[in-house]
């Protein structure tokens, strides 16, 4: 329980580490910096969901919608 509290506090402290202004976000807003899978890998992810037991935690589908594992 203590570890979870410390992790939550550490994550919350991250929020005040830096405040990059909007005009400074040129590099952050680069399309390749997006915090998700790139669109053209969609069907690769589908294949992985079918052929592997693990799925989810990538911002996308985490289960259901198919008779796969």
């Amino acid at each position, binding site marked *: 329980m203590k570890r979870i509290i410390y992790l939550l506090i550490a994550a919350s402290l991250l929020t005040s580490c830096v405040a990059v202004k909007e005009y400074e976000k040129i590099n952050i807003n680069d*399309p*390749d910096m997006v915090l998700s899978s790139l669109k053209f890998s969609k069907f690769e992810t589908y294949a992985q969901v079918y052929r592997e037991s693990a799925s989810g935690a990538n911002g996308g589908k985490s289960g259901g919608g198919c008779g796969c594992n």
Partner: protein
Amino acid sequence: MKKIIVLIMLLIATWGNSQTKQDSINTYKKRVLEDIEIYFLTSYYTQDGDNAAVTGGIGTEELTDLATNIVISIPLNDDDVLTIDATASSYTSASSSNLDPFTRTEGADGKVILIGSPWVESSGDSRQDIWFNGNVGYSHASDDRNKIWSANVNFAAEYDYTSIGFGGGYSWLFNKKNTEFGIKGNVFLDTWNPQSPIELESFSDDQDLNNGFFRGVDILDQNGEVIDKNGTNIWNPVSTTLVDDKNRNTFSVSFSFSQILSKNAQISFFLDLVQQNGWLSSPLQRVYFADRNNYYIGNPSSIPIYTTPQNIDVFQLADDIERLPNSRFKIPIGMRFNYYINEMFVLRTYYRFYTDDWGVTAHTLDLEIPVKITDKLTLYAAYRYYTQTKADYFAPYEVNLSSQDFYTSDFDLSDFNSNKYSIGISYTDIFTKMHIWKFYMKNADLRYSHYDRSTGLTSDIISIGFKSIFK
């Protein structure tokens, strides 16, 4: 206790300090999406291996799939976006064709001759199918763009499976949009239209080896001798009940946290909690037990080479279909870290830890480097490593025991590791000079990936995508 109070006070002070620097509401409100955007993606996938689950963990896994996806994002006004996502996937599978692996002919004496093999693709109806999926989503952003809520409905269908789903989400940005918390919930209410191996489906009807599918067909024992169907040494599956609950439901809640670390780096964390209930086994997949006698239909001289691809004309009758628990709880936890190295290189990384209550633990590591060779052309190189432990109920062909409550020989649930190598190229034109009628092309993508698994499965996929805006 004192330490916890001090830490909480420090947290409040720090969080309060970050909030005092928020932007004031702008008088100008930028549209969430300026124009209609259309992304079209098509891919060709091919795989092969030697551990087909439909034939009990041995046999050809040859499969090809041609899939097409289109995503249309429509700005309804300054704040709202409607997204339509549709996919059609047409596959041809040697493995699923072997639900009924037999070719039926008649001998000179009028006797029925059946031959089949787990290594040979059958010409049955189950050989080919099309999977459809449609998703409609709606999102609304607040005036300051710091709060976004969304909702979606989903439908999918193929010959043996139907899915209806819905969900919603909420995102909150703060700290000058440097920090984002998100939460999403999804429900999938799915239904099997169960298709089972031909011999088990026939036997479950009347348990009569002289009737239906088995009328006039010789059944062989392990020595290749024709059995007396009215005797005691006969093929007898473990259960005559196949699927007794066609429902398969999934409930998930997902949390996300993203943080800009500097002008060049950002990180995100994802946590899903997924509960699945219902018929979680696949009714298509055969299981063969070590403690049951073996029975075959076909050419007796091929029985000694049954487990090799040289066997083209004898097929072993299944002992049962795969049986798995009717509940599964999954916890994947993921992290993305992206770093803008310079104008030419970006580093994209992803790690996921996964665990569930079926005994599977998995790790995923993904590294990708986009290389901007010109202002319009970007090359992509990526490597992905994956490893998993086996599910508690998995065992290969002829290893499971009939005394077990749950069993599978699906190698997707076995222990293995895999490697994926990808290369790609992307063309981007932010000024959208190229156009056909009102469709202005924004970018085009081409990507190839090769995947190989330590079980012997290999696959290749090539994908082509186009993004355009409609003015």
